[in-house]
Every structure is written in structure tokens, then in C-alpha cells.
């Protein structure tokens, strides 16, 4: 029951919120905090209860839902799932704390947010492909409302010769961003449905059970066209080049908690889907397509980093850095090595924490400075030392400094890349980490260091009250899991070699 309670509790909290009057601000927030906090604590409990000796999928729950089509609520977690549950719990609690001061229709905001996070939790524990996809959509769709209603528009406007293009499409507007995000992700979903049905029909066992679907030996030709569809479908959410363009606009327009959750957790759903459905269920095609996946991932890393370097809007910088870091995840997956896969899942975890922290901080800075235009900032560190400190911490994790979670993930992925069939992947990967160092530290210097702050930023102040909670939860986790990675890496590593052995067996004869 633990797993279903993790999924259900945010939803119950959302339902409960319907009956709370909007003006009861504290009540709304406490209920949201309870719903998400329960899921965090239960996720920690799941991590503790996970039997390392047994491995595999545990805490199985099975409730038949539509027996005619073999659809059932099958919940179970493996080491990967546990780590991502933990991540989701951490980020959503921090997200709720970070949006504590949100005023505009806050009740509706928290309801939508909690529904969204229900979907995320659901994806990570679902063992039924149909339910997996259902939760996936539940996680994706509220984003439209959250960005379209509570988002921000035109924080930094284009002044150059191309400004008419911006006006024409309303680039930077929240409706534009919300629509773009939703449409691109739904197109991706269409691909996923096709793959899902193809697999369901191919097995012919009238079951959407992922164990059943995974155990079946699909026709090679079926795999060969299903895998790219799956890659593109989930890849749209994972920010795979060139389908990443929703990500900068979407993240930049979204309100703080949504950016945190979206970049921190939702993009991982995409990567998780590719690994779970693509790599694990279609091993032959995965081996055949891995070179392409890896090359695109490498493009993602370098391209995302360079794009981030050219941005002037702080939120765009962080959003592009997510594109770059998700490239690391995909690179890890494409290496088809234990190191790479461990690194990919750990990077999901580390990047979730890091980018969650980043967006929380950007939200704090934006809320106080009322601008995200970096060149006009400067010297904020004097007035907001705490924010500056945590920002530096996020930067360090982003550039992969030892002692932060980002380092562990990157080192694993790069080792995996070097041991894979394409060792050169490691070089652009590491180069990307260096470019990241260049732009994040430049951003940090621009905002927090130097002379200032200018007269217009008179009401700057450090984080207050519960906002510290968000920062400490995420920042503390980054350091904790950076110094003692085995806390989570043991869980991940418990299952990775087993999963990979299917692929390595196929690769050996060649």
C-alpha cells in the first residue's frame, strides 16, 4: 500500500483543497505541504525498505482495472524507481515551499501542482504500460494551465533586428510557451501511443504488464521502427535535440515551482521512459540505434551549453543548461555500459536536485529584483548572501564539482562513454562540462558579485522563512549525495547490471 499511498496522497490533498476556501492561505499551503511531504517521507521509507539482497521489483501491488485489455494498476519499484521517487519527493516539497508566497489564485495553483505530481509519482511506480502512459499524460497536461495562467511573459524582450519575429509569434509570452510545450509533448505522446499499441499487439498476450511486454522477444523489424518512435516521443519531454525548443521558453515562462518540477522531474520522465521502454524492452534496436542516440546526446550537451552561454535572461540560461544536462543522461543511456546507465540515472537524480535549486533561486531573485535581465544586475550578493551561496552551490553541481551530486553522475557517464564503442563521446561531454563552468560562473558573477546593487534594486532581501526550507532541502541533498553517493547509487546499481545483461548478451556475438 505504500506505493499507492505515495501516488494517492498528493491527489487526495488536491481533492481536499477543493473544499478549503481560497482565502485560507495558510490552510491551502499546509495541506499541499502535507500531501507532498507525506510522499517524500514515504519515498524515504520505500528507499529504506527496499531489500538490497533481493533486488528487482519490490512492493508489488496489483489491482485489475480493465481485465478485457489486460490493464491493471500494477505498482512496484526497483532501484531506479526508488531513486526517482526520492527525487520527486524532494523537489515537490521544495517546490511547495518555494511557492509559499504565491498570491494569485493560489488554491487552484496548488491543486494543479499536486495533480501534476500525482502523475509523476505514478509514472515512476507503474508497471503497466497503459497506466504508465496515463500517468505520463496526467503529469504533462496540467503544465499548460500552470504556465498559461501563472506564468510570466516577456521578462526579457528582444530589441535586435529580429524583434518583429518575436512579436509575430509572441515569443516569450506565457501563452506561446504553454501552447508550444503542450503541443510538442502531445505530438511526442502520439508516438508513444503508437509504440505502446504496437508492443501490446505484437505480444498478443492481452496484457499491458511491463514485465510481460519486456520479456517478449519482439520482431527485429518491429523494434527497429518502434525504438526511434519511442526515442522521439519520450525524447520530446527529455529535451532531445532538436525537439528541445519548448524547454527554454516553457521553463522561462513557468512560475517558480513549475519550473522546478518540470526541469527537475518531468524531463526525467522522458529519459526514464526511453530507458524503460526503449532500451530495456527493445534491446536489439537499442543496440542498433545507440550510436545515433549518443551522437544526438553529445550535440545536446555542447549545443545546450553554448546556447545557454548566449542568453541574457537568467531563466533561459538555466533552462538551456537543463537541455545540456539532459544530454548527459541520454549519453549515459547510449553508452550501454553499467557505468553509463548508473550515471544516467544518477544524473537524473542529481540534475533534478540541482536544477530545482537553480529555479528556486531564480524565482527568489526575480521576485525581489523584478527582472531577469542579467546585464542589468550586479552586486546582489551583498543583500542576499544566502541566495548567493546556494546559487554558487547549484553552479558547482552544474559544472560537476566533486563533492556535489553532479560530479558523481558526470564521472560515471564519461567513464561509460569512454568504455563504450564510441570513446570520443567523452570529449565533447567533458567539454560541455567546461562550457557549463564558463556560463554558470559568469552568470553568478554578473548577478551576485561586482559593484552594486544599483538604485533600482532597493527592495532586495535575502530568502525568508520557509523559502530557506526549499533551499536547504535541495542544497543539502546536493552536498549529501555528492559526498556519499552510495546512498542512492547503491539502489540504482542494484538493478542496472541485471538490466544491462540483456543487452550485453546480444552484443557479445558481434
Amino acid at each position: 500500500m505504500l506505493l499507492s499511498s505515495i501516488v494517492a496522497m498528493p491527489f487526495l490533498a488536491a481533492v481536499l483543497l477543493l473544499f478549503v476556501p481560497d482565502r485560507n492561505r495558510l490552510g491551502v499551503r499546509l495541506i499541499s505541504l502535507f500531501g507532498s511531504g507525506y510522499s517524500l517521507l514515504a519515498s524515504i521509507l520505500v528507499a529504506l525498505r527496499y531489500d538490497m539482497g533481493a533486488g528487482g521489483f519490490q512492493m508489488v501491488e496489483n489491482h485489475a482495472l480493465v481485465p478485457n485489455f489486460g490493464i491493471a494498476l500494477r505498482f512496484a519499484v526497483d532501484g531506479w524507481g526508488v531513486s526517482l521517487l526520492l527525487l520527486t519527493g524532494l523537489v515537490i516539497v521544495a517546490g511547495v515551499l518555494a511557492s509559499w508566497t504565491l498570491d494569485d489564485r493560489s488554491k487552484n495553483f496548488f491543486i494543479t501542482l499536486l495533480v501534476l505530481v500525482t502523475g509523476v509519482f505514478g509514472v515512476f511506480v507503474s508497471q503497466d504500460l497503459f497506466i504508465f502512459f496515463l500517468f505520463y499524460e496526467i503529469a504533462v497536461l496540467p503544465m499548460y494551465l500552470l504556465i498559461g495562467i501563472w506564468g510570466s511573459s516577456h521578462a526579457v524582450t528582444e530589441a535586435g533586428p529580429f524583434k518583429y519575429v518575436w512579436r509575430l509569434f509572441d515569443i516569450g509570452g506565457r501563452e506561446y510557451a504553454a501552447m508550444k510545450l503542450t503541443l510538442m509533448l502531445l505530438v511526442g505522446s502520439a508516438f508513444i501511443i503508437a509504440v505502446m499499441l504496437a508492443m501490446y499487439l505484437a505480444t498478443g498476450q492481452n496484457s499491458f504488464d511491463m514485465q510481460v511486454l519486456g520479456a517478449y522477444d519482439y520482431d527485429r523489424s518491429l523494434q527497429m521502427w518502434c525504438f526511434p518512435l519511442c526515442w522521439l516521443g519520450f525524447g520530446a519531454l527529455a529535451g532531445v535535440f532538436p525537439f528541445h525548443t519548448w524547454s527554454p521558453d516553457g521553463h522561462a515562462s513557468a512560475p517558480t515551482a513549475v519550473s522546478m518540477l518540470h526541469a527537475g522531474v518531468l524531463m526525467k520522465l522522458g529519459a526514464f521512459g526511453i530507458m524503460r521502454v526503449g532500451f530495456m524492452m527493445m534491446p536489439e534496436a537499442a543496440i542498433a540505434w545507440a550510436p545515433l542516440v549518443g551522437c544526438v546526446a553529445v550535440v545536446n550537451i555542447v549545443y545546450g551549453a553554448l546556447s545557454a552561454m548566449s542568453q541574457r535572461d537568467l531563466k533561459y540560461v538555466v533552462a538551456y543548461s537543463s537541455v545540456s544536462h539532459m544530454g548527459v543522461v541520454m549519453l549515459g543511456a547510449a553508452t550501454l555500459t553499467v557505468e553509463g546507465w548508473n550515471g544516467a540515472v544518477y544524473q537524473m537524480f542529481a540534475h533534478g536536485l540541482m536544477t530545482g535549486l537553480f529555479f528556486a533561486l531564480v524565482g527568489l531573485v526575480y521576485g525581489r529584483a523584478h527582472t531577469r535581465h542579467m546585464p542589468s544586475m550586479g552586486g546582489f550578493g551583498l543583500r542576499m548572501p544566502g541566495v548567493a551561496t546556494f546559487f554558487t552551490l547549484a553552479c558547482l553541481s552544474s559544472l560537476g564539482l566533486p563533492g556535489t551530486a553532479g560530479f558523481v553522475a558526470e564521472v560515471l557517464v564519461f567513464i561509460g562513454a569512454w568504455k563504450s564503442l564510441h570513446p570520443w563521446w567523452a570529449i565533447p561531454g567533458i567539454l560541455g562540462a567546461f562550457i557549463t563552468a564558463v556560463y554558470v560562473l559568469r552568470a553568478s558573477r554578473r548577478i551576485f558579485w561586482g559593484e552594486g546593487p544599483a538604485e533600482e534594486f532597493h527592495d532586495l532581501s535575502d530568502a525568508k522563512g520557509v523559502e530557506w526550507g526549499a533551499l536547504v532541502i535541495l542544497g543539502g541533498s546536493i552536498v549529501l549525495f555528492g559526498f556519499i553517493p552510495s546512498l542512492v547509487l547503491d539502489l540504482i546499481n542494484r538493478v542496472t547490471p541485471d538490466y544491462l545483461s540483456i543487452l550485453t548478451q546480444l552484443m557479445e556475438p558481434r
Partner: protein
Amino acid sequence: MTPIEYALIALFVPLAAAFIIAVVAPLRYAGMPAALLSVAAALVSLGASLALLVQQIAQPDRVIHEVVRWLPNGPAALAQVGVHLDGTSVSMSVVVTLVAACVQIFSLGYMADEPPAARGRYFGYHSFFIFTMLLLVIAPNMLQLFAGWELVGLTSYLLIGFYFQKPSAAKASVKAIWVTKFADIGLLLGLICLFAVTGGFEWTATLSKGWATAITLLMFLAVVGKSAQFPLHIWLPNAMEGPTPVSALLHAATMVAAGVYLVVRADPLFAQAPTTQLVMAWIGGFTALFAAVIATVQTDIKRVLAYSTCSQLGYMVCALGAGASMAGYFHLTTHAFFKALLFLAAGSMIHAVHSNEMSAMGGLGRRMKATSTVFIVGALALAGIPGFAGFFSKDLILEAVHEAGMFVPWLMLIAAAFLTAFYMGRAVFLSIFGPFSPTSEGAHESGFSMTGPLWLLAAGAVGIGYFGSDFAALAGGTYHFHLGMSGILGTTCALIGLLLSWLIYGSHRLSPQAFRFVAPIAWLARSGLVDRFFEFAYRRGALVLADAVGFFDRYVIDGVMNWIGWSTITSGRWLRRIQTGNVRDYVYAVVAGAVVIVFWGLSR
């Protein structure tokens, strides 16, 4: 207590202090208590290191290697962390903690004028630095060494940017971490190669010649960055934007020497790669000469010392290139003492006159007797005057390079020895002797917290050279002092350099005009060509590329997406005309559809 426990105390007590200072905000804001906590932690760390050293001297061959699993991967662990205690790491940890403790005590006085909160932050960084540096020093494998390596880079970044309100300091710190991070690409790649080839991060691995060369060359790139070798030395002079004690500790004595320590540690790997060693010798020798030339034209005393640090690190790297890791390591140790001494003494002088310019310090010898004395001791040690520590280690290096048959690097080192003595003499004559300036007129000696550490370091700068054989025993080598041809030549050159500087700047018997023939070199030295090159590469290369990519993303990739959206909307608008709203037209459509379906069905 077991040696492991000592090592862990040395390692974690400063970390605990840093953590407490970071988390307990009132303590940090109070300033002084945080500083005392930090100093106490440094002293505990020093004590533990000394205890280890005593044990180690009793059993010079003792090696303690204790690891725990850190990164699980598959059935085995990918990496361990732990403690590796042998003569090298123990003696290095003593050097680190000793210099750090001296610098921290010195900082109590030097930073007294800072706001309390800033002081708390400062000492927190210092405690963290001791942890990170020791993490590097007692690393049992290359990965932990790399972790410490990056973390000292972080503390360097934080401490250079300590006066973060100053734009130049902010830029300098970012520049420092950029350059070192760039260089670290090499180390990370090297480590990954090492792991892929040997399945571990051990420096004792045996490699094929090709791999050894590749891996060590990659590692050496990181050394070039961290130890400020040409052409990545550019960050070190800017790093002087940090508080002077920081320059003494990080950017002279310990952190920049981490590169040298890395090579000493990974000596078994480097010994397998003669090509790399040759490259090292050349780059080291060239840096020694090049930086010394630049140092002769600087007017800012900290920049003189900074370039001097580059130059001395070049000596060490050159020695390592000659395969004499013991010589390089010995020079690292002596250099740590006298360079920290020089920086702290310079700091004391800066503190007195509130200026970095040597012209503002004239005649300080008469106002600040103690500081001046130790500065002169440091300068003599650096110049390699017989009897002082620098003489022994430098002699060893010259000897070793000569023996290795590397003639050109050796020649460069000899020239650098001459220049070193010259610019140090210049610094002494300009700042300590010479006429008073308006600012130095009213200067007075610093307090005991500042002079005390200076005396201690001065003792080291004089005395440490006589412990060469003990040191060699610890480092696993042998050392017998004998004055060879190289040593005599080097010492002679140094004496000539000193004499020349006295003639020009001390007694003014020679006018600088007599040396106009070196003007082009001086101009080159001042122009900072390397700096400009990197700035050009950054502004015209990286930033332009980034802007191009950003443009491509916004208007090409995104443009395609927007075009798809736009064309959908436009075609929808066009198709909408079909929907007239007139029931009759719909009936026609239904009829037509029905007819088509019927005929389609019939034709099958």
C-alpha cells in the same frame, strides 16, 4: 591513536569547523569567535599531522593504505576513498597544515579591520581549504586526488573573490576557475583513460608506453593549469586580487603546488612516459625563465611575487621532467616556507602602507624592522643564496636537470636563477631600503599575531634546507649534499644578479638606462600577450560561437517549429472557409461522401 585516526582528525576537524561556521550564522557574523574556532581547528590538524610525521620519521618506509568503497558500480566498486599515508603525503600534510596555521594566525591581525561577518566567512573558507588540501594530499587514488584538486580550486575561487564587490576581484576569481577548469578537462580525461585501461584509479598502474604518454600528457595539462605554467599561468597574477594571506597560502605555498604534488604522487606513471617528461622539462624551464623576466618589470610587490611563484613552479616542473621527483618535491617544501614568508611579509608591509606598489614602500626597513628582516631572509632564500633553504633545493634541481642531459631547460633555469636574484634584490632595495615615500613615512610594525608566524616561517626558510637527507628518507630517495658544477654556476649567477640589482636600485651606480637594449623584452613582458590571446579566444571565439548557436536555436530550430505552427494555423484558416455554416452545403458534402463510399465499396 592509530595513524588513520590521526589522519582523519587532521582531515575532518577543519571540515567540522568550516561546517559550523557555515551553518551557525551568529557565529559567522560575530567574526572573532569564528576565526578562533578556525585557528583552533588548524592547530589541531597541525598537531595530528605532526604526530603522524613523528611516527613516520621513526619508520620512514611505513605505508598505510586504507580505503572504503565510495562509488558502487556493478558488483565491484568503481572508486574508493580513503587515506594513503607514506613519507610524501605525511610530510606534505605537515607543510600544508603548518603554513595554513601560520597564515591563519597572521590573518587574525591582517583581517582585523574587515567587517566581522566577512571575517567569519574568510576563516570558514580557510578551514574548508585545509580539508580540501588534505583530501588531495592523503588521497589513496587519483580520483580522490582529483576531488581534492577540484575542491581546492573551489576554495581558491571563493578566496580570490573574497572582496566580491570589487569588479576586478570578481573577474579574477572567475578567470582563475575558468583557466583551471579548462586544464582539468585534461585530468578528467586522463583519469577516465586510466580507468578504462587499468580498471582503477591507482597511480601504481603499469601501462603500455602509448597509453602512459597519453594519460600523463593529459594529466600534465591539468598541472599546467593548476601550477600556473606557461601558457595557462595567466590566472595567477590576477589571483593576487585576493587577500594577501590567501595569496601566501593558496597561490604560493600549497594550492598551486598541488600540480607538482600530483606529478610526485603519480611518479610511477610519469616515469613510464619519457615524452611527457621531456615536455614537462621544457615547459617548466621556459616558464621559469619567462615568468622571471616578467617579474623583473613589475612594480606591484604582489605581482612580483606571483610571477616569481610561476617561475619557481617552473623549476619544480622542470625537475619532475628530469625525473627527479625528490628534487622537485624538496623545492616545493622549501618554496612553501619562503614564499609564504615573502607573501606574508609583503602583506604586513601592504597592511602598513595600504598600497601594493613598491614605490610606496620605500624605506620600510627603518620603520618595520622585524618584517623587513624576515622579508630579506625570504628573498635570500628565494634567490638561492648559500645557507638558505632555497639554495639546497635549487642546487638539487639544477644538478638533476643537468644530469638528465636536458641542456636547454638547464640553461633556462640558470638564467632564471640569475633573474630571480635580480628581481628579488630589486624588490628588497625598492621597498625596504630606498627613500621614504609619503605613505611609508608613518608606517609602523604590525602586531605579534602577524610577526609571530613570520618568524616561524623565517626559521623554516633558513633551516629546512639542512634536513634534506631526512626529507629524502621520507620521500623514498637519497640525498647527499655536494656542490657540483651546476650548483656553483647557479649560485654565481644568483650572486651576480643580486649584485646587479644592488648596483642599479641600491646604490644607483648604474642607471637603468644602461640596459635599454633589453627594452623590447621588457615591453613584451609588460604587454601580457598570452592574456590577450586568451581574451581574444574567449571574446571573439567562444562568445561569438555561443551567440551563433543561440541565434541558430532561436531562429532556425525554433523557427522551424514556429513555422510548423504558423502553417497549421494558416491552413486551418484557409480550410475554415469550407465550413459555411449553411446546412445545405453540409448535406451536399454528406451526399458526396455517401456516393464516394458506395462507389468505392462497389469497385472493390
